[in-house]
């Protein structure tokens, strides 16, 4: 996933001229920021809370943001890093909390791989996608998913297997 600095420049200029266009920056980077934050938080709720803070802060600061050619995502990672430090400091009032480093190239590659996977999830047949979402996002048991989809548990297990096999193939795995 290559981001060009020219794209970044256009996104920033558009959002500075009209804050309603900030959603373009959000759409482009939300998955990366969420992936970065999620690895450094204890649960999904905390990751969602901090991801929201990052984009709220970025929107608030967009008018004052001076673009000097660095990728926009680097700016967002810095905001996220500070928000994570706030988060952990609140949980350990007396401890020294150093903001985490922004991701190194190895982690960026890992984040991009996951984002590609998540995009493949969105391409799955609707029932398979629902099973993945209920199992991994909502953390429902097979029984709960079966009830919600009005299917047998065996059928849901089959859908889960097919979804994961399809994702493995999409990600370059072999049969």
């Amino acid at each position, binding site marked *: 996933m290559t981001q060009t600095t020219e794209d970044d420049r256009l996104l920033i200029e558009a959002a500075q001229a*009209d*804050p*309603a*266009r*900030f*959603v373009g920056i*959000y*759409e482009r980077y*939300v*998955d990366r920021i*969420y*992936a970065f934050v*999620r*690895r450094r938080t204890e649960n*999904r709720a905390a990751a*969602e809370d901090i*991801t*929201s*803070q990052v*984009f*709220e*802060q970025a*929107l*608030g*600061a967009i*008018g*004052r943001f001076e673009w000097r050619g660095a990728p926009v995502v680097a700016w967002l990672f*810095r*905001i996220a*890093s*500070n928000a994570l*430090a*706030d988060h952990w*400091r*609140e949980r350990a*009032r*007396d401890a020294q*909390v150093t*903001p985490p480093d922004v991701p190194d190239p190895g982690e960026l590659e890992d984040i991009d*791989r*996951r984002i590609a*996977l*998540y995009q493949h*999830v969105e391409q799955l047949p609707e029932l398979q996608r629902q099973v*993945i*979402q209920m*199992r*991994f*996002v*909502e953390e429902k048991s*097979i029984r709960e998913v079966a009830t919600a989809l009005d299917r047998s548990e*065996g059928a849901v*297990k089959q859908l*889960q*297997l097919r979804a*994961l096999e399809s*994702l*493995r193939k999409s*990600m370059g*795995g072999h049969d």
Partner: protein
Amino acid sequence: MTERPLTDRLDETVDAIVARRDATDALRDPELAPLARIAADLRHYPSPEFKASLRAQLERRASMTAVTTAIRQGFTTVTPYIRVREAGLVDFLAQVFDARETFSGRGSGGGMHREVRVGDSMVIIGEGDAGGGGVMPIRPVAFHVFVNDADATFERAIAAGATPLGEPADRAYGERSGFVADPFGNHWYIATPLGRESVAGALRTVTPVLHVKGAAAYVEFLKRALGAIEEMRHDEGGQLRYARLRIGDGAIELGEGEPMPGSFLLYVGDPDALYQQALAAGATSLMPPTDQPYGRIGGVEDALGNQWFFSRPVTTSS
């Protein structure tokens, strides 16, 4: 021994991954291992509902920001309005914070109306008994203000007649700050960030601070009444101690404490709509929106005595 079906083995592995139990056994099963790796990555799959809801939230706030920017350049959505009985506050702010008066004029009630820039922030000061349209009480307000050198600014404030409320010290929340009351009783929490983790990055030079009783419930009220967005909160002993809220592209901070209500001007595109929204959330009317020579304005007071005026000026100014 008959091997159990792959569907069942995979399901147990997914259960273990979601519950953060040990799932490494799966990696020794050649049929299961590649699927287990995919499943492990899916544990962090972002919720589509969360992404859609955050997008909608950003769009709402962006539309408010766009309106304010278009309405009054240099202002954010929330501008504190300080009522004082006599002149002198502008001089104090100039001496201590290098503030600059950008506009002054006589208000319709006969008092002076002054607009003052402090760093990248604006405050409005109404002087005289008749200022603020007669509905804004004369009362002190509290502010969090970021400066380059909290100690030097604190000293300047004392020299300019302020009363110390707290000597400069390094605070656990990531700033060095000292607290003063100006000669009119307004509180200024003068801060310099300590390192990158300070809240300063999220705030402008001056941010109003509301001390309230029942802070947690009040935050919920502000969300309903003004569309405020909670950006940060710290609870202690089951009580909200501190919260930072966004309203449009402006911010306020609030915390549990001896009440110190204030008056605020919100530049918005549709003052009537926000007035109605605030009333529906439980605020009481101070003045229904009406057209004035300077624009359309209406105002409400909430249960804690804070006043919120919604204004759409007729002209823009810089």
